[in-house]
């Protein structure tokens, strides 16, 4: 398999989804730092909707700081969904409010109707498509969002993603990684870094181990391994996503293994 194909079919970046208690990764997305601040949050927060946008909540991890202020991140390319919820902005018993650095995502902010958001982003998308073309314009065909539920074995609650927000498996993978990064405890198998599902040599190890496998339920109700079909076809047929523990995904393996074998 070529490097390009590998890129295309890789799903979860395990390093990013690994639970850590150290300082944020330098310059990185630092999703895992959310866990450091778990002590700040009381109670549960539940997200059900997915039209979220990225908010950069700057949280200085000083010991006295238990308040945050939120700044909105300007980088919002894939508009992926969040993992842990943002904290309440202020606590009454904290007289000093040091600014905080923190990255999280907020549902429904800024308060723009989804109808409007969709129209505008579709027009911008179709305008970009036209940049090379002349003459008649495309009609920006978007038949609305394609929200599907995403469950991950072991996570306390489900999420939803809009598959139409992404253009490739890689983008979806990044988004899911961000979404579930605070929940996953992934045993590192040896010195594995990036996991690559379509990598022949790793697939078997992976499925036998406790790593995670993304699967989806298609229109016929069958559970399939993600990554087999072209992206567009996947978006059309996917009804829900489930990130299974590898050991449970054995039933799906034969197909993937066959595919690998046929490539070698």
């Amino acid at each position: 398999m070529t490097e390009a194909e590998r890129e295309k079919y890789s799903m979860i970046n395990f390093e990013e989804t690994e639970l850590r208690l150290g300082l944020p990764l330098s310059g990185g997305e630092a999703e895992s730092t959310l866990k450091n601040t778990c002590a700040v949050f009381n109670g549960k927060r539940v997200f059900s909707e997915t039209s979220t946008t990225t908010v950069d909540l700057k949280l200085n991890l000083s010991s006295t700081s238990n308040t945050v202020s939120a700044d909105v991140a300007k980088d919002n390319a894939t508009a992926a969904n969040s993992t842990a919820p943002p904290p309440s902005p202020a606590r009454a018993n904290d007289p000093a409010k040091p600014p905080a650095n923190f990255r999280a995502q907020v549902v429904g902010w800024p308060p723009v109707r989804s109808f409007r958001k969709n129209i505008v982003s579709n027009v911008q998308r179709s305008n970009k498509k036209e940049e090379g073309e002349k003459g008649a314009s495309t009609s920006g065909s978007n038949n609305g969002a394609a929200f599907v539920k995403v469950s991950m074995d072991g996570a306390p609650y489900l999420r939803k993603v809009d598959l139409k927000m992404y253009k490739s498996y890689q983008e979806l993978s990044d988004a899911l990684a961000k979404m579930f990064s605070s929940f996953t405890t992934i045993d590192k198998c040896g010195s594995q870094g990036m996991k690559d599902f379509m990598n022949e040599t790793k697939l078997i190890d992976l499925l036998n181990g406790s790593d995670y496998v993304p699967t989806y339920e298609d229109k016929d109700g069958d559970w399939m391994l993600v990554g087999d079909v072209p992206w567009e076809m996947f978006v059309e047929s996917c009804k829900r996503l489930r990130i299974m523990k590898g050991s449970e995904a054995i039933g799906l393996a034969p197909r993937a293994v066959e595919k690998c074998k046929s490539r070698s």
Partner: protein
Amino acid sequence: MNYFPDEVIEHIFDYVVSHRDRNALSLVCKSWYRIERFTRQRVFIGNCYSITPERLIQRFPGLKSLTLKGKPHFADFSLVPYDWGGFLCPWIEALAKSRVGLEELRLKRMVVSDESLELLSRSFTHFKSLVLVSCEGFTTDGLAAIAANCRFLRELDLQENEVEDHKGQWLSCFPDSCTSLVSLNFACLKGEVSLGALERLVARSPNLKSLKLNRSVPLDALQRIMMRAPQLADLGIGSFVHDPDSEAYIRLKNTILKCKSITSLSGFLEVAPHCLAAIYPICPNLTSLNLSYAAGIQGSELIKLIRHCGKLQRLWIMDCIGDKGLGVVAMTCKDLQELRVFPSAPYGNPAAVTEKGLVAISMGCPKLHSLLYFCHQMTNAALITVAKNCPNFIRFRLCILEALKPDPDTLEPLDEGFGAIVQSCRRLRRLSLSGQLTDQVFLYIGMYAEQLEMLSIAFAGESDKGMLYVLNGCKKLRKLEIRDCPFGNMALLTDVGKYETMRSLWMSSCEVTVGACKLLAKKMPRLNVEIFNENEQEDCSLEDGQRVEKMYLYRTLAGKRKDAPEYVWTL
């Protein structure tokens, strides 16, 4: 007045039109209540769960026009899960069974099924007007039923609805005998319509004043339509893309010159900027311009266009116009009353609008009374200036895209700025806050915002005191919606009677607990206190100490509703 016969009083009541005034009349005495209810034709129901359709019909048998609103406002921002409620069906069924001669139905944030539309179209012979705003649940099949069966239809106005397109020819379902259309708006539909049917429909509708097309209607069809309807006053353009050298474009330019009656323009869902010059001739007549969906137009082109629009009273635009562009608006549009500036990207255009644009507007447009402004930053100084220049604000909605952002010049919260707004604008009825805010701003609001009816708060405040200032101070408060604020049980429970004077309260991601909500529900039986438990994996009964993620409470005479989905717990 008691010595006058009923007919005389009825005649006098005919002059009393507003809902509030009529509500007031009905409270004067029993005979006025009786007369008022039999003569009442228009009823507004701000929360469809506040009353049952049967009770409505029983009280107002002469009902002709009904306005219904369903989901809470924050449903617009995906905070309300999908199947929460707001169904039209029971209303239509009840009305159809009764002898009400419904003529007009206006819905907002309701779930409308094709079956209800079909039933509606068959049940009321004199049905004239259907207006659907931000609704969902129906397809073009439902529209086909309306088109086919409502023989005297005057108005079909679809605004920002999620409509499934079944690629049937709904527009062709208007029979040849239908010549009564005054207003047709299908801009939100995604699919194609039969252009021939559309042109023929326009040709046989001499009273057509308002027509808003969707993006599937190309420029040459637009030209033919405009030829047939020179009387149009309100036009929504779908697609505005053409080769500027073509015959079709030249024909369009000439046709536009003849349409001197157009005063309102919108749409441009698809636009090639070089085509915009064609509409310059009608710009001087425009009082209303909505370019908020025209993502294809850049700031410089917007500015060129605006320079021609000296009579504008209402302008909806995207933030790519920039501060400089707003300066041009301020210089050109001296009659401006309503301005909305929307973000062109989820976090706005980096080169977009700031406090400077708003200050410029306030200096140039003293008649401004309604504002919705998405911007990158705001300062207290700017807000104070705006408050001084524009004391007539009725609606002031400011959204600083970065939540919790303070005044960038002083790094202080925006309490003083908003305080100046409420202090200066004594007629303020609607306010949306943003940026970094402490309890102080709520003290100002409670003290000064005497006419305030609707308040939207996000990421603000420090303690329960904030919410209490508002509940205590704003006597006319009807709708309060709060998200991500540190308001908790004390604020919620201090004045439970207040909620019966309001339409509804929304609190999400705050500090209220299940126990407090239960207590509130127990004390106030005429409130529905709904908690949303969206936690799918845990099969839990909520414990009292648990924090509530989303709570929506509203006064009601209808009791607990029977159509709530599983995740909604009415306490």
